[in-house]
């Protein structure tokens, strides 16, 4: 069986994110890293493989993005993926979530995985939705924000997730698309050896043409949702910040603050 894990590079959380005023898109320049949510998806794939719950032959990391996105793939293979695929093409730049999901689904179609895993959201654009888009194109069943996966007989999964009214348990036949929540596992840290070995694992570069993507459906100008401007939200008065140095004094200040507002 084959598991494909969709990953993404995102600006490092320590870097202040900003908007490019000329395009309205997130300025993705600067330090980047593998989306932390995606590390849970890779870990889930590795646990399915290593536990023997599924007869997993290979785990393939797949990303779409500019040249720099290779680094996210290196991280993904250092965490255990066997090889990686980088979909990169200028025609894809600025694609919205629907166009991105379409493009990724074309790459996945060729790979014909039994299971597609991804993180519940990305750390930059906060889209929770890419899994549902990919699944509809692949015509696979899908579920998002899954926090537990059990394998039932090798061809069926039993998944748990929290939805609007409590925890749901859902049976899903493979092939399927599952996005995992961060409570599903604690991702491992890559060993030094794995980091050193990452660049030796196969990395395949794929263009839109290679993947059979209809370029009239992707890219910023062709995306169906269009950014048309931006504005500043009403400013909320900044709250007061206390750096705790002397805890007795800090507590005194908190109590005084609460007392002023008649909250005690």
């Amino acid at each position, binding site marked *: 069986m084959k598991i494909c894990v969709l990953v993404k590079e995102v600006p490092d959380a320590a870097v202040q994110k900003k908007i490019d005023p000329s395009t309205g898109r997130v300025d993705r320049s600067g330090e980047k890293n593998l989306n932390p949510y995606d590390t849970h998806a890779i870990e889930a794939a590795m646990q399915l493989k290593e536990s023997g719950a599924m007869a997993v032959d290979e785990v393939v990391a797949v990303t779409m993005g500019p040249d720099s996105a290779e680094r996210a793939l290196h991280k993904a293979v250092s965490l255990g993926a066997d090889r990686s695929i980088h979909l990169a093409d200028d025609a894809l730049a600025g694609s919205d979530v629907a166009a991105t999901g379409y493009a990724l689904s074309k790459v996945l179609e060729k790979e014909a995985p039994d299971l597609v895993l991804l993180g519940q959201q990305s750390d930059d654009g906060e889209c929770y939705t*890419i899994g549902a*888009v990919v699944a509809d194109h692949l015509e696979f069943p899908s579920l998002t924000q899954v926090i537990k996966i059990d394998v039932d007989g090798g061809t069926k999964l039993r998944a748990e997730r929290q939805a609007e009214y409590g925890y749901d348990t859902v049976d899903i036949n493979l092939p399927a698309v599952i996005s995992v929540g961060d409570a599903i596992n604690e991702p491992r840290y890559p060993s030094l050896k794995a980091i050193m070995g990452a660049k030796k694992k196969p990395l395949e570069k794929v263009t839109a043409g290679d993947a059979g993507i209809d370029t009239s459906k992707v890219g910023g100008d062709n995306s169906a949702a269009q950014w048309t401007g931006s504005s500043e939200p009403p400013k909320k008065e900044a*709250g007061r910040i206390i750096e705790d140095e002397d805890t007795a004094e800090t507590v005194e200040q908190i109590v005084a603050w609460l007392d002023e507002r008649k909250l005690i």
Partner: protein
Amino acid sequence: MANILVYALQYEGAFNKNSLGAVSEAAKLAAELGGEAHAIVVGQGIGDDLAGALGNYGATKVLNVEGPEGLAQPVVDAMAAAIAAGDYGYAIFGGGLLGFEVGAGLAARLGAGVAMEITAVRAEAGKLVAERPILGDSAISQISFRSDLGIIISRLNAFEIKETGGTAAVESLSVEFSPFSGQATMVKRGEQRGADVDIEGADVLIAGGRGLGAEEGFELCEALATAFGGNSAVAATRAVVDAGWFPYAGQIGQTGKTVAPKLYLAAGISGAIQHKVGMQGAENIVAINKDANAPIFEFSDLGIVGDLNKIMPKLTEAVKAKKGA
């Protein structure tokens, strides 16, 4: 293409209040576009009385679909069928997990543009423009659609519920579900894990997150809530509920409760948007977190950068002493 279709989520005979807000918003926008707001419900044996009740929120027609509940893909099938047969320019979802899944799947199915985390929508020259706060709510981007159908998925609690006293015609819509939507089946829905705790009525909420470090960390929250006494309670973030540290009934946010206490004190909570949408209506927000860059400090009235294990016990003693004075 002036009509708007809204997915109304129901569970055990009651509509989700975010769905009701979406119906009200759609009714308002449809009137500005010169069209009508219709709703669609999907479930097992939903009575026409229940479906028709959406008329009171502004829907003029409700499509009642017999199908599996609680899963997104059958709803995508149903909405795609309704849109193929009707005259719809927009589909609106009132947030929540299923709304995101259905909206995204529908966008893929119909080649439609999708805008999510929307907090406001306005009609402009006969079209809808959606507003989405981005980058930790520090900017608002405006999104419009170049596709025949525009899909708008709101943030939780974005739309106000308005009762109109109107009535809706209920029509049954028979849908042929796609083979792959039948590949997922609900085994158990809406399981309540942990004790039943009431956080919606509390005046003072002490909420704990991952920064508590372990389940035992909630003892600090319980002690502080007890010190406040009266109508106070302890609540939690999704991360710690999923980890099994606290009952689901006490969870605030996207798939939990929405609260608006007089005082909300966050201990070890980073303030992710999924949590913020459930508590930003609190009158006074106090946050204790050791990470000075935690997003919660951007919307706290009082933020304390420090170790909650040192601060909480002393604060508990001080609140007790103040109460006793």
